[in-house]
């Protein structure tokens, strides 16, 4: 099973940014260290629960997970006071489109390998095997990866990425 190398990741990331800039999707490519680059996007989220409406901000980071040789998706969400949402908040607010029983096998909280702060990490099911299956057919491995993640987080992936 061929896996995604770091070089593959960087190449796909740079490609991804070009598309993002074209459709103004807001992603940025950040070179943290020589071997720690990542994609980042900050965006507002509108949370509605019946009459209750709240504005939140989400920080999405796509980085490379060396030990598994796959891209990894991490995020944090905070409210207007700057307070970070807890894992339980994320679960009960159904910000992730998954039934509560499966929640913990998909989302976990870990110390982020790059930022050394707690972040939520998503494990889309069978990332490695799906990406390996698509590796030769996919034009951009990160777009394929996001295609697995976006439905979970209700993120809209603009069509431009597929073209």
């Amino acid at each position, binding site marked *: 099973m061929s896996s995604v190398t770091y070089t593959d990741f960087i190449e796909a990331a740079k490609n991804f940014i070009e598309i993002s800039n074209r*459709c*103004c999707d807001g992603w940025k490519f950040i070179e943290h260290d020589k071997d720690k680059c990542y994609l980042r996007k900050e965006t*507002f989220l509108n949370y509605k629960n019946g009459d209750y409406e709240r*504005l939140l*901000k989400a920080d999405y980071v796509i980085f490379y997970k060396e030990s598994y040789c796959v891209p990894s998706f991490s995020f944090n969400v*905070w409210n*207007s*006071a*700057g*307070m*970070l949402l*807890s894992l339980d908040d994320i679960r009960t607010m159904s910000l992730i489109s998954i039934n509560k029983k499966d929640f*913990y*096998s998909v989302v*976990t*909280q*870990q*110390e982020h390998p790059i930022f050394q*702060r*707690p972040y939520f990490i998503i494990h889309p099911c069978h990332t490695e095997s799906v990406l390996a299956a698509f590796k030769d057919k996919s034009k951009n491995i990160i777009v394929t990866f996001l295609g697995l993640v976006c439905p979970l987080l209700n993120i809209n992936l603009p069509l431009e990425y597929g073209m």
Partner: protein
Amino acid sequence: MLEAQNQTEIIQYVPFSSFVHPSFWHTLTEMKLEVDKLKETTKQIFGRFTYRCDIGSVFEVDGTSFNKTPHLEQQYHHVMGTIMNKNTIEDFKSIDKASLLNSIGEMIWSNLRERTWITNPSALLNFFILSFADLKKFHYYYWFAFPAPSQPTVHMKGRSTKISDYFNNKQLETLSQCYKSLEENQKNFFVVIKKNDDLSVKKLSEVFDVNSANCIDLDLVSTYFVFADPSNGCNPGWPLRTFLAALLEYCPDLAKSTLQVIGLRSSMNGDFIKSLVFSIEIPQDIKPVESAGWVGWERNDKGNFGPRLANMSTSMDPVILADTSSDLNIKLMKWRLVPDLNVGVMKDTKCLLLGAGTLGCHVARNLLAWGFRHITFVDNGKVSYSNPTRQVLFNYQDCLGGGRRKAEAAADNLKSILPTTNSKGIVAHIPMPGHPIGDSLKEETIGDIKRITEAISEHDVVFLLLDTREARWLPTLIAAQHRKIVINAALGFDSYLVMRHGISTSSDEVATLDKQYIEGRYLGCYFCNDVTAPGNSLRDRTLDQQCTVTRPGVAAVAGALSVEILVALLQHPKRVDAPALYNFNKTEQEIPSQIEGVLGAVPHSIRGFLHSYQTIAPTCTKFKQCIACSDTVINKYREEGLDFLLNVFNSGSYLEEVTGLSALHLSAEMSEILTLTDEED
């Protein structure tokens, strides 16, 4: 229809909603701790808002707000403002908010009167934060204000209209292009002139003359006053308020006229198609700004004029971070591997460790790793120079000055590993059977017994980690009487024993021998084993001799297994009554389902032999004549209390008489003699 178009209503400005990035609090804290310290400061900071049409009227600050120059972001405008950080909550609460806002407003207004805004339109934007940072709790109280004069009051003629009703695509394209070439500080407020079909963009300084006291010959029909509009609804955003006030101060002759205002709103791709045009009617009498006060304090979440609180303790307080991160380890086990794991039970279980030596230290470390947070040590000794290398909670410092009390040092050092641990040390000596107590020590011994009894009764689990067999007797009896979970660990040079005790039962029922397992409550204790396995090999006998020298690995393994057995027990639905298999080597399919808990079946005891790298898991029932856990002994203790105990301590043979063991030994000797006699024949 026409009337509706001409209907005027007092203009409703859309106020800003503050939005703070967590990094703002981090930087504020850093500055307070390292730069300002006790000084109460008023600092210049930057905030920003976007004129994107898909985002509402949000005003953002983050860690970069404290930078000397702001970090430019696309489709955002930066605003220079002030933060006033108070040193106490009382100062924060007691400061007069209305007069504070007015004095800020007065300062802004006197600047505006000098008309520097004509050359530097960004000067029309302003914001203020009143704050108080409680850096012990990481609670941040804050209140945003966006100062604007309450006068003049203007009216909006009809509803706002789309910009495409006024400009065609070519003109909009021109607008976009010219906008891009404006300098940053000109982009907030500027003027658009549409003559015939030509559209031109002009800086404010190209339209207004700073020096001229008088007015302008602007053709109001072809002139549009433009402002970057944070609002994305049908009403204009907050910046327009101060803009209009400044315009009317500069040119009072604009009274009784209608101004065309463009609220500039950008789409994602940078075009301005979503912008709106407002028709603003200026009243005849323009009330001067100085006549009325200033408005702009932000309403809080409840819609009242009051401050907001950012409780950042869960993400910023290092003690809380250590605590939640440690808990996370256990939760990950549950989420990923053992979904039925009860993570709360470890936190709630109180553990008493009798002995803070090699075993005690290893057990404590493993308890911490499993999420136990209530740990008490009982030990009479002091840390000596030989201890730190093997007793993993002590270090060199603890040995100095005669040596710290082990129980206390162990408790303190646990807290230095995880501050939220509830750890305590009790200094007490455990009296032993057959070790007589002299009159001079009687009172102290009674005190020790009392404290040990209290400690056992207040905890859920007792770990027997002592260095002699005799010292285990008293706590075994007390724990049996109180029906506590007991985990017993003993070491030999290269062997170990880890076991769990059964608990006392009220019935006389004894487990039947032909089952595959023994119910937990019928399991034997340390002393049951001792007698029911007569004639132990020499190797077993070297277990638990005081001052045994052991291979270091033995203590680590035994300590770890003790905790693993406890957790397996706690995770079993039957807890201390969890059955123990006779034969632990059965394959998984053969184990009856009622035996297994979440972490599998729980053995009665584990004996390990480092010499051969083997372990066995023997199981045995209670012994009816056990010197520690039999009904005879427990009842005698219940009836006679302290007197019974003192008798036991003072005589080496008392217990064996009480339990009838002396008779048993005699009969065993007799049968030996008889056998030999037979053989000789």
